[in-house]
């Protein structure tokens, strides 16, 4: 579904991605782990076109989207749940969700969008309760759910999630991961970026490890979970606990 070849991204003269190649098959959950500043966000932002100075190849359903802008890319069915949620804070929950479907209003039936809204409410009952609340006043967990809900409203074929558990309490994090696996069961394709490597590896089938703009390791998540290197670098705390 998504194939990236030799992707290089730049912020001005600074090169943040130094030739990344990866692929995500339909129906798969693939996770991407790496330390702070490794280039995970840059990678996701390059896929959707938010980082526009990029070279290489990004094939989505066999179309190269590297020349396209975010608007065109989202219309093709790629949706990003951005780092830090990026909600429309002064707008209500329902307005945020409706705007998630913004680009569909011209081509899709209103009833279809409405039924997708109901589906989001089934997945996140709390959002239905908080429908008229101002998004900026939601709790962190609710905001993350809204960010996911908003991206689902675009009816994406591929969802990119950037650290959905960031800043959330363990209980809420578990809930978010449950929702991700629920989405997976429904057949959604997901590329998941996470600091919480343990949880990400448990939920995904395959994973990539990225370091200073390069993929340094890839494989089945199960294997990476038991890989010494990965354990030491990304599952550090637990590793220590085992030995202490």
């Amino acid at each position, binding site marked *: 579904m998504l194939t990236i070849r030799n992707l290089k991204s730049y912020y001005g003269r600074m090169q943040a991605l130094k030739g990344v190649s990866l692929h995500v098959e339909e129906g798969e959950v693939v996770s991407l782990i790496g330390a702070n500043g490794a280039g995970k966000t840059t990678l996701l932002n390059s896929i*959707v076109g*938010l980082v526009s100075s990029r070279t290489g190849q990004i094939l989505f359903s066999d179309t190269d989207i590297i020349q396209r*802008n*975010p*608007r065109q890319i*989202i*219309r093709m069915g790629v*949706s*990003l749940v*951005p780092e830090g949620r*990026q*909600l*429309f*804070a*002064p*707008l209500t929950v329902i*307005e945020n969700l*409706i*705007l*998630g*479907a*913004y*680009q569909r*209003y011209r081509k899709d039936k209103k009833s279809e969008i409405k039924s997708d809204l109901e589906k989001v409410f089934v997945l996140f009952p709390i959002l239905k309760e908080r429908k008229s609340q101002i998004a900026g006043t939601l709790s962190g967990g609710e905001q993350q759910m809204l960010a996911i809900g*908003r991206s689902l409203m*675009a009816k994406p074929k591929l969802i990119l999630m950037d650290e959905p558990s960031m800043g959330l309490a363990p209980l809420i994090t578990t809930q978010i991961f449950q929702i991700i696996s629920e989405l997976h069961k429904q057949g959604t394709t997901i590329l998941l970026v996470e600091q919480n490597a343990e949880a990400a590896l448990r939920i995904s089938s395959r994973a990539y490890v990225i370091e200073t703009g390069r993929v340094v390791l890839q494989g089945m998540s199960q294997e990476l979970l038991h890989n010494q290197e990965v354990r030491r670098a990304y599952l550090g705390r637990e590793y220590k606990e085992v030995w202490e």
Partner: protein
Amino acid sequence: MSLGSQLLQYLFTGITLGTIYGMVALGFNIIYSSTGIINLAQGEFVMLGGMMMIYLTTIIKLPMVVGFFLSILIVALMGALFERGAIHPLKNPSVITLIIITIAASILFKGGAMFAWGKETFALPAFSGEEPVRVLGATILPQTLWILGIMAATVVFLIFFFGFTLTGKAMRACAANRTAASLVGINVKTMVLLSFALSAAIGATAGIIIAPIALMDYNRGTMLAVKGFSVAVLGGLGSNVGAVVAGFIIGIMESLGAGFISSGYKDAIALVVLLLVLFIKPGGLLGSKEKGEFKKF
């Protein structure tokens, strides 16, 4: 005339002025909230609206209603053209660059108007009759009722547009978070264009309805922009309710000041208020603290 009815008279005048200032402030707000730009050419839209209406109805002799909507449309197009010509081509402009551009545009519009219509002052007949209505010893011109009515209609339109249409919501979304807006597929640049057109249209409307009582010439825009800007700041930049309320406050202060102190000082009042607000409460009456700071374009 008793003191009571005199006060009432000043109040009516103040409300009329305040309505106009409020509308100019609404124009400032629309562009400010979707782009962070203070459009100092806002007053020129008001002037152009008035002049265009006078030209279309008294010189070309189009019917009032046609002239009204056509003037608004033409000025809205000018607003759009201004955005496409001067704002759109810039890549990552700084706030100060943008402000200087709007000043340049304001000079250009003013020059254009002088070139087209000369330096004379023009009058526009009132929309319906000049016979004042007596209320408790004071008088109201029928045009004042038009002004209030059209202001109310504009506010209702804006509430409907921003609250209930997809495009209106998308404009608010752009104002709230540009990155997220482009992530859901909103064309941010189009929304900026729209905000210039809309704000020019509202400015033009203000110019048209005030022309019958205030007369119009090429040079009217600047002072109206200053007043409107003071109102927008007092109300809290970006707050539309604030704009309407602050419009009445400054309008009434001005008319009381002119009546009881001296009409020579009336233009200074808005400026004094502006300075006071900036010193004491830069966020304005109804604005949030965050709004008091400049947004990044």
